[in-house]
């Protein structure tokens, strides 16, 4: 009995693994065999077929971000939902929620020059919204877009100034 059970387990698991890797390889939603899950290395991601994470545009140093904010070196875009933004955001950050992108895109193009230096952030290294937004900006021919990988959570954690919108 045990031998038959073990044979069954082997066959079922073998079939499942073949199906899993084949499906993952063929599916447009498939992911890489190894992802980036180390927060200190930037935004965590499984590198799926639909993923827009681009490590080269990430700024990981919180000191560098502080400098950018202080010297207003870049226009900062907060892509979290508006109600979250209102509770607290980086100084002078503009709210352009990713979920409202289609509604706000014309306003964005009107108000921000395509040659402007931009910095996009979302909530933490665990969210890829900033990268999705950055990719859409690039599609709109914005040429200088960076992502603050640590997001609002890292900014808040180190205790830097937070602006709040009353109401």
């Amino acid at each position: 009995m045990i031998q038959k059970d073990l044979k069954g387990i082997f066959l079922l698991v073998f079939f499942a693994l073949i199906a899993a890797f084949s499906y993952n390889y063929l599916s447009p939603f498939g992911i890489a065999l190894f992802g980036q899950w180390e927060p200190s290395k930037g935004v965590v991601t499984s590198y799926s077929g639909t993923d827009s994470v681009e490590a080269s545009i990430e700024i990981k140093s919180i000191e560098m971000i502080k400098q950018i904010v202080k010297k207003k070196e870049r226009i900062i875009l907060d892509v979290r939902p508006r109600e979250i933004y209102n509770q607290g955001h980086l100084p002078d950050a503009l709210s352009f929620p990713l979920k409202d992108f289609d509604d706000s895109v014309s306003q964005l193009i009107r108000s921000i020059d395509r040659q402007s230096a931009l910095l996009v952030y979302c909530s933490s290294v665990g969210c890829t919204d900033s990268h999705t937004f950055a990719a859409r900006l690039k599609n709109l021919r914005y040429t200088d877009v960076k992502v603050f990988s640590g997001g609002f959570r890292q900014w808040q954690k180190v205790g830097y100034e937070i602006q709040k919108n009353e109401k």
Partner: protein
Amino acid sequence: MKSRKMKNNYTPVLLFIIKLMLGITFIYASYHKIADPAGFAKILYGYEIFPGSSINILAITVPFVELVAGFSLILGLFPRSAVLIINALLSGFILIIGFNLLRGHQFDCGCFVFSSENQTASNIYLLIRDFLMLASGIYFLRNTTAS
């Protein structure tokens, strides 16, 4: 003597119900994970238990092991092996959910749907549900023989 006879009469019905329940549950549970492996990988990351190098491999393979075990059980192909796999998975889920509940770590189980809310109460419910399914699986194994 009478109660023993009654138990024997009801056992095949109970085994059939367990077979259907476990099979359908695991097929259903695998569906959204297969549809969104990136989302499931993020759920696994959120557990803060797995090494980074294993997360994608688990996100790719675990849902298919669930699917194949579920179908195999319902179709009667190596049903005991399927239940052994299901019990192994359930034991793993219980250990992981229990460990995170004990250390007070908030997480989304991602068992059936990927929710944005993390609720300890619902995770305790999940733990109880997994224990009940594991008990059903053990009952199934004790009352079936390899054919």
